[in-house]
């Protein structure tokens, strides 16, 4: 969806003129979005049927915090919006054995305040306050965030870092895709247009694991110029299984697997700067960054180094 990109890259500065429509007894009222029909869905089957009938002319409306902006800016012109906000089957945060299952319609604010998330998914708990602003977190959903796959979004990076699974449903049935195989590129995912993000299944994080989440933004709550979601196991002084997932650097979250592997086994004692230097060397080779309108690729590579240094410094300071 390249149009969405131009909206983002322009920082939303584009002006769209009001259109006026005539409404009986009201005179003329301003509208922004192109005309569409609207259905408040009452069951998943109804959503599947409507999608089967209307195909790509129908859009799913979840929190609307990205879709409505695109419609107001006339970057998208669907014929039909299928509002899924009434579908309780897609809501809720539940424990399921060694995982936490988050319904696709779960709002950002619920993740932010959930005791289950705080206990079992501390990385996500830490990420949530960075997503947009309170009024937007009151509406925006994890399913929308994952379906949209904005390259600078926090939740896609977190679910990749935590090796979660995405449950997709459609009239044809359901299937599960690993988060690490879900995000293909700029606003491009493994999801077919007729599939809903029904839930995200995230393995509970072992208590021994350490987490780091940080991002660099022009303003608190803005999409990040660069961000890092990292986890590591620390035994005594030794790091293992270092997982680094960068976002905002290219078209999708990047799992820097080679860098993580290279750093595993390193001891977080002595000269931490030397370890950081070694990790940076691998990272520079592995990471391919792409410019956006605010930052060059070189700038993004620099920010990735800064974030990596902060992560390792935090891990070293907090080792047991």
């Amino acid at each position, binding site marked *: 969806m390249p149009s969405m990109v131009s909206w983002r890259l322009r920082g939303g500065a584009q002006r769209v003129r009001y259109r006026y429509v005539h409404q009986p007894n009201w005179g003329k009222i301003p509208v922004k979005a192109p005309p*569409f029909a609207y259905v408040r869905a009452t069951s998943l089957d109804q959503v599947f049927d409507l999608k089967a009938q209307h195909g790509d002319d129908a859009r799913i409306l979840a929190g609307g915090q990205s879709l*409505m902006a695109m419609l107001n800016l006339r970057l998208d012109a669907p014929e039909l919006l299928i509002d899924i906000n009434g579908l309780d089957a897609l809501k809720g945060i539940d424990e399921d054995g060694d995982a936490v299952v988050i319904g696709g319609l779960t709002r950002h604010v619920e993740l932010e305040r959930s005791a289950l998330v705080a206990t079992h998914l501390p990385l996500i708990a830490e990420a949530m306050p960075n997503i947009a602003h309170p009024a937007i977190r*009151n509406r925006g959903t994890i399913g929308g965030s994952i379906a949209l796959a904005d390259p600078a979004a926090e939740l896609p990076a977190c679910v990749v870092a935590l090796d979660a699974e995405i449950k997709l449903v459609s009239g044809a049935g359901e299937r599960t895709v690993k988060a690490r195989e879900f995000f293909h590129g700029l606003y491009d995912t493994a999801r077919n247009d007729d599939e809903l993000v029904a839930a995200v299944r995230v393995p509970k994080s072992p208590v021994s694991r350490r987490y780091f989440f940080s991002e660099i933004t022009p303003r608190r709550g803005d999409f990040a110029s660069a961000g890092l979601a990292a986890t590591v196991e620390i035994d005594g002084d030794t790091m293992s299984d270092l997982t680094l997932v960068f976002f905002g650097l290219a078209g999708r979250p990047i799992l820097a697997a080679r860098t993580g592997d290279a750093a595993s086994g390193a001891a977080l004692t002595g000269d931490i700067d030397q370890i950081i230097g070694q990790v940076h060397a691998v990272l520079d080779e592995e990471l391919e960054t792409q410019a956006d309108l605010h930052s060059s690729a070189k700038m993004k590579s620099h920010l990735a180094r800064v974030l990596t240094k902060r992560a390792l410094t935090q891990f070293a300071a907090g080792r047991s």
Partner: protein
Amino acid sequence: MDETTVISCTVNGEAVEEIVPARLNLVDFLREKLDLTGSHVGCEHGVCGACTVRLDGVIVRGCLTLAAQVNGATIETIEGVTATGEVADLQEAFLARNAAQCGFCTPGMVMSAAELLTVNPDAGRAEIRDFLSGNYCRCTGYQAIIDAVETTLAGRKNGGSTT
């Protein structure tokens, strides 16, 4: 398929029933149909916060919500929370601190700050800033607004007045 839809909802305590175009934004409905022009329209893509209203008790962007979506819901606007006196102390603090200059951002700012007052009564200045990060003000430079919210928080804790 129909490009209009019927909604019935409660706005500032009053029942409203209306046929609306599906594409009508909530904030335009409130302003143009119900004459509740306290909610403002700035960027219309979620960035500025001028359109902030309450939907079922929590703040939302009036420009990123459709009027069609509020069927069965309860809406409160700046007019409503002013009438009930819920934000009287906050408004007084804004006035005392000159935290409203042109006033364009003020209704949205007050609606956002009112939510902070209930969800985080212990907020410090950094948390106030964070919470209001989604509301642009082009006049005050924010300090006066943060001051006013801080004063109101302190006032409510002491259970007394803000002055």
